């Protein structure tokens, strides 16, 4: 990791300030310094490229995928038969499933949904966590104590059990379908994951705000008559943006994992919707019958995606926040 104080050689076209030899240090904004630190994190750089490729492939699935999301491919020798359970070959890179759909195409289409759920959940959980954390840290005292005890308790709960029970609510209670989302919808998935994913952000933001609020610039803001709301929104939150972005990155990874876990057990998205979890759920019994590709490829794509996002989070943390202690994702 590169220390902030050490001058880092800049790009060749940067303004040369070496007229005062030995004294001049080339200036760089904190953002530039962070970018440089990020580029030095090899795993994060490789992960960024891989993730970019996966994301592009999923976003442009309509163009890239050789077959449709739910298209059963007709057998080459004509007739009414479909290409059922074909092992991977040059035509079907990841093989086909039990009704003759191309797995590679389905992995790409499924990725759209999985990535969407991950990113949407991270944004909303990050917002809730930031709001709660900055409020607790700024107010301090009893409110802080109560909120943080609540957060700690929440972290300890078996979130999977909580998610499954909440997932059943809209099926039984009409009000829950209105508030949380229809069973099997993406909205329900994002809402539920948000409800169990805000805690890490809240704790981190609270910690940073707790130390920042004693700083001179907050005192100065107060002295000129800024309201609490203004101090939080304009002075404290912008200074915690680094840790917030880092924790949101880890939430994306965790949310993709949760979505696929829930879908795998039939508590997630509508089973007709291709998502990485649903693809694995479809593959469920094929392990016993020896159709390994149906499990292996979706599982590997899922694992690689989560791994890349976590590596990026790690790189971002080192880049934005060189002094922070390591945290564990998910």
């Amino acid at each position, binding site marked *: 990791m590169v220390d902030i104080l050490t001058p880092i050689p800049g790009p060749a076209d940067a303004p040369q300030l070496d007229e005062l030899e030995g004294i001049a240090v080339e200036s760089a904004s904190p953002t530039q310094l962070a970018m440089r630190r990020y580029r030095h994190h090899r795993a994060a750089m490789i992960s960024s490229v891989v993730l970019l490729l996966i994301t592009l492939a999923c976003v442009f699935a309509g163009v890239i995928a050789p077959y449709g999301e739910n298209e059963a491919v007709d057998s080459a020798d004509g007739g009414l038969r479909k290409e059922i359970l074909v092992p991977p070959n040059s035509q079907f890179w990841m093989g086909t499933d039990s009704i003759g759909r191309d797995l590679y195409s389905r992995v790409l289409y499924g990725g759209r949904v999985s990535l969407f759920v991950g990113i949407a959940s991270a944004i909303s959980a990050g917002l809730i966590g930031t709001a709660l954390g900055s409020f607790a840290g700024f107010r301090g005292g009893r409110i802080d104590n109560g909120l943080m005890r609540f957060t700690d308790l929440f972290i300890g709960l078996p979130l999977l*059990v909580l998610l499954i*029970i909440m997932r*059943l609510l809209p099926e039984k209670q009409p009000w829950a379908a209105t508030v949380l989302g229809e069973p099997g919808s993406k909205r329900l998935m994002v809402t539920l994951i948000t409800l169990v994913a805000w805690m890490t952000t809240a704790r981190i933001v609270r910690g940073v705000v707790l130390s920042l609020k004693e700083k001179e610039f907050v005192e100065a803001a107060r002295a000129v008559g800024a309201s609490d709301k203004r101090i939080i929104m304009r002075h404290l939150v912008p200074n915690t943006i680094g840790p917030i972005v880092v924790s949101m990155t880890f939430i994306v990874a965790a949310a993709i994992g949760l979505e696929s876990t829930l879908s795998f057990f039939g508590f997630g998205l509508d089973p007709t919707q291709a998502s990485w979890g649903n693809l694995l759920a479809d*593959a469920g019994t094929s392990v016993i019958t020896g159709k390994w590709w149906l499990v292996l490829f979706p599982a590997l794509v899922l*694992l690689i995606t989560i791994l890349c996002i976590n590596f990026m989070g790690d790189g971002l943390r080192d880049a934005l926040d060189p002094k922070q202690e390591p945290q*564990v994702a998910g």
Partner: protein
Amino acid sequence: MARFIALRAAWAIPVLFIVTFLTFWAVKSATDPVQSYLRVNTRATPEMVEVYKEKHGLIGSTPEQYFRWLGNFVTLEWGNSIKGNRPVWPDLKAAMVNSLILGITASIVGITIGLGIGIFSALRQYSKFDTAATGASFVGISMPPFVSAVLLQVFFAILITRWLGLDKPFLPVAGIYPPGQTTFDLGLRAKHMILPVTVVAIQIIAVYSRYMRASLLDVKGSDYMRTARAKGISERKVIMHHAMRNAMIPVVTVAAIDFGAIVGGLIITERIFEFHGTGDYLLTALGNGDFPQIMPLMFVIVSSVIIFNLLADVTYAWLDPRIRLG
């Protein structure tokens, strides 16, 4: 210290009531016992429904129902399941025994290996071992337990078996015993536990090794370590007495946080490997909307979480005097 424990325990009691009440409300809303009863007993008359509600305390407001349920729970009158009308306790007991065997074995294996890797990595920072272990723990943390479970199944049930040309799976991938086995057999049981224990342990190893490494590295750079060495204490003693005791403090909190994750991991693992434990029990009961089966287990899980939080607080205070005196 006694005062500290008493204060924390006093705080835990209202929390227990509030959290179990919320659980009761959520589970009842999510399963709807009356609807489930009607689904199983399709020809039940309105009178029979009334009798059922009366018998299971499903009348009155939710708080009333909760306290009536709690009374029955405490007096061990756990009632019968909706589907199949079986007594709840024997099934739940059998499931909990299996889960505990799996959970405890995996925890012992996982925590021992995890702490060992963490300590070794920290003592040899930037060595080849450290790099490999850090990378591996990153993969472990990124892998949802169901993915590691299905990948292990694919490898052990299909690929390895095929490569070795065996006619039976290399390792059993489902159940507690082979079909037909009714008597206790330690060897077979152990063989069926290898893969489930591996899945749960991977999670534990990844989390504990990361925390242990970070925490020990943090302690290693501190001044009191240098002072201890300057006094001429042996390196072994410096590590064991000065470094380890302080490095364990943050790791203890992980135990409380990780408990919920382990329960989740157990549920996933048991379902995939058809290991008849609480996970299998819970998912089946949830599928049937079987409230009398679900709620006692939820109560046990939720109170364990609260007890673990309390234990972590107390251990933390015992290891770090600043907390109990501050």
